[in-house]
């Protein structure tokens, strides 16, 4: 993760994350796509002053699909609190992070990486817990409801 401050080449006096703009191809590096299987992917795009990490989380069934979408949308809406989170995920992925040189100056690199890894682990845990609690609640409600017909 080697980022540096780089003023915009297209517009004077501006400083924009080059990975979002993509106007100067020489400032972008090759994107790396890591796939564990069809359903889980990680795309890392880098440029001279910014880095975008997009992840697709494993979704086994419809219920997980809905839970993931709602949960991650909830987090993305509050992206300011997380600073490195992107408000909208990149097309085709569930969640995206945008790290710029300013984050690199304020925070330490290995801690940023630790944060992202921990964040994703926690998301996975949360989603499985949510799924379990939805299933449990459904079962309880159904049992109670059907008791009156016994």
């Amino acid at each position, binding site marked *: 993760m080697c980022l540096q401050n780089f003023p915009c*080449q297209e517009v004077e006096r501006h400083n924009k994350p080059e990975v979002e703009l993509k106007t100067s191809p*020489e*400032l972008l590096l090759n994107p790396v796509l890591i796939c564990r299987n069809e359903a889980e992917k990680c795309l890392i795009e880098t440029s001279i002053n910014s880095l975008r990490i997009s992840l697709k989380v494993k979704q086994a069934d419809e219920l997980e699909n809905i839970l993931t979408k709602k949960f991650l949308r909830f987090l993305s809406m509050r992206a300011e609190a997380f600073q490195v989170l992107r408000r909208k995920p990149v097309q085709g992925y569930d969640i995206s992070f945008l790290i710029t040189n300013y984050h690199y100056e304020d925070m330490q690199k290995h801690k940023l990486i630790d944060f992202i890894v921990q964040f994703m682990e926690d998301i996975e845990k949360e989603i499985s817990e949510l799924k379990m609690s939805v299933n449990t609640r459904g079962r309880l409600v159904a049992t109670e409801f059907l008791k009156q017909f016994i």
Partner: protein
Amino acid sequence: MAAIAVHQFAQCITCHAWSPDQSMVAFCPNNNEVHIYRLSQDKWEKVHVLQKHDQIVSGIDWSARSNRIVTASHDRNSYVWNLEGSEWVPTLVILRLNRAALCVQWSPKENKFAVGSGAKTVCICYYEQENNWWVSKLIRKRHDSSVTGVAWHPNNILLATTSTDGKCRVFSTFIKGVDTKDSRTGPSSDSKFGEQILQLDLSLSWAFGVKWSPSGNTLAYVGHNSMIYFVDDVGPSPLAQNVAFRDLPLRDVLFVSERMIVGVGFDCSPMVFAADERGIWSFVRFLGERKMASSGSKYGSQFSEAFGKLYGQSKHGVSTDAVEPSRSRGGVHENCINCIVPLRQPGISTVMRFSTSGLDGKVVVWDLENQADLSDYL
């Protein structure tokens, strides 16, 4: 231990320069000001704040003999500061740039300076006595992308530039009226301004940090693909060597002597490269200790708090045993080093001391005096 002094000046330092007597240091604390600190009785005190730029100051150079500071900033301007009495008086230099200025350096004779910019041009500025101001001449149409580094050859005429298009170019900057034509054969016989002497296409990735060796025979620059390139006999048929290393890329280099170079970059520790008797360059070692300190479990605490607030502290029990926290690289600097400046003693051509500054806000002075294994190369 090679680092003899560590000074924490700010949260983040973009670039720095030392005064000729090395008692004062000027740096940019990642904003639009330049702070000058003086060392008096072992304490650093802020003596001047130069506030003229509107955006971050990307380059500072302090001339050794004429005691002038030149600063260049992302707001497309450059100022030359003269010390009059106890105040630094700025003089605007009309650079005629339409993008940010990225780097600046005084020429060896200090009558010119070069500014590399995001407008894909290099400005050479010289002082016009009749009008009492600094005039710039642009080298256009040669670079394909931003110019990230400039370096003057000791003959005051040749200028090497590096750019984010991966190429290193050498130009002649002969200006009639400012430079005197030396009766020397060789590269300096091309005396047209802006004439490209050489274009080196060795790197596939962005190039930074170019420097000439003290005699001007060798040119070194760094590529973002973790390689450092050495070019001997700069002229019609140069000899190039690439040295690849395993670690993170470098940002800047400094020639300590003809055969030893120190590189600094994203690795937070300076790296030493040296050439043996045959002239083959290779990596020697890192300077300074590399302790492996483990980062504590409080990583990015504001994030975990925000997360915890949303979901209740109980769920977010910090399970750091699950993920092994990555270790910091240790060493004196904690973040990327982006600037290395020599501290020359007058009369001695090899550099025994130099200073580095980085994104962690520290300026560290290093000394090569006691490094026994490196003294053969000095």
